[in-house]
């Protein structure tokens, strides 16, 4: 990650300064930071709402119930998830429904809980790697935003992308899980 970051930043700064001058480079850098602020603000509402619901979920004992019920399934992928299994299952469920805004706070909560059990705090545990790999391959049952987008652009059958999307995201998830299983052995 570090190498990728430095490389992108360095190549970007050098190339843009040569081609468009220093002012343009500074403008691009600040535009990136501004994007982060706007994005964070637009995420804030969604996070407040979903984390609020998660608060109710926890207080009512449903989260623990969910964790206990799903533990056999979760255990296969996350043998050492512990109390994080509830948050993990919520994250996976939201991902599958194409609700990225809800998946992220659940996923971050799961990361926090996983990190509590992490014996080496700056190094990712197996569970964290698997959670990220599955999130990155994003198995989607209902690509809701995509269907809406196709509808806007005049598709006669907006939901016709369902099958190819499902199949290819299933392929990439399977590959990610297999790779993780091999690498965590």
């Amino acid at each position: 990650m570090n190498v990728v970051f430095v490389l992108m930043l360095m190549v970007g700064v050098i190339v843009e300064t040569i081609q468009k001058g220093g002012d343009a480079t500074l403008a691009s850098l600040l535009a990136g930071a501004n994007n982060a602020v706007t994005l964070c603000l637009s995420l804030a509402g969604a996070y407040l709402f979903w984390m609020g619901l998660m608060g109710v979920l926890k207080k009512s004992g449903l989260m623990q119930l969910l964790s206990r019920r799903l533990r056999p399934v979760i255990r296969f992928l996350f043998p050492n998830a512990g109390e994080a299994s509830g948050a993990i299952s919520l994250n996976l469920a939201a991902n599958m429904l194409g609700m990225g805004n809800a998946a992220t706070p659940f996923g971050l909560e799961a990361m926090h809980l996983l990190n509590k059990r992490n014996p080496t705090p700056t190094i990712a545990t197996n569970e964290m790697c698997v959670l990220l790999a599955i999130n990155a391959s994003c198995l989607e049952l209902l690509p809701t935003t995509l269907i809406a987008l196709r509808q806007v652009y005049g598709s006669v059958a907006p939901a016709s992308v369902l099958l190819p999307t499902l199949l290819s995201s299933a392929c990439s998830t399977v590959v990610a899980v297999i790779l993780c299983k091999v690498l965590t052995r």
Partner: protein
Amino acid sequence: MIAYIVPALIVLLLVWALIKRVNVFSAFCQGAADSLPLLATILPCLATMLIAISVFQDSGALEFVIGLLEPLLAPVGLDGRLLPLILLRPFSGSAATAITTDIMSRYGADSLVGYTAGVLMGASETIFYTLALYFGTVGIKKSRFTLPVALIASLVAVITGIWFSYLLYPF
């Protein structure tokens, strides 16, 4: 369908909470309060990643890489119009959405290229952003095998996405 599932789940949750005699108002407040430290840790991670992406994109370095790859991939049968989308997708969700909408409005959502662009958009994820965010919030510095696995998985999504779109194209 989906439009009804989530609201129904929310109502069910509230009913359950009432049965369990939970103070829903304070539980919701507490949960929502937890999102503030989360947002505070997210912002620096987001800014770090987005600054690098922004300057890399604006400098034209990305287009240069795309230009280099285009003649290499044309013989394989890959539509060159999809290349910017494929290469940008791991870095920036908004840029990928912009390209997808551009392709859809220009060639039609139901054209093969518009259809494939949609599938690629739906079947892949902004992995660099996700990784930076998830690991950044808990202070993980060594992500071990996560990045290579995520990259391989998204490559698989691209290849199978193009293949399945071609195979299952309904129009």
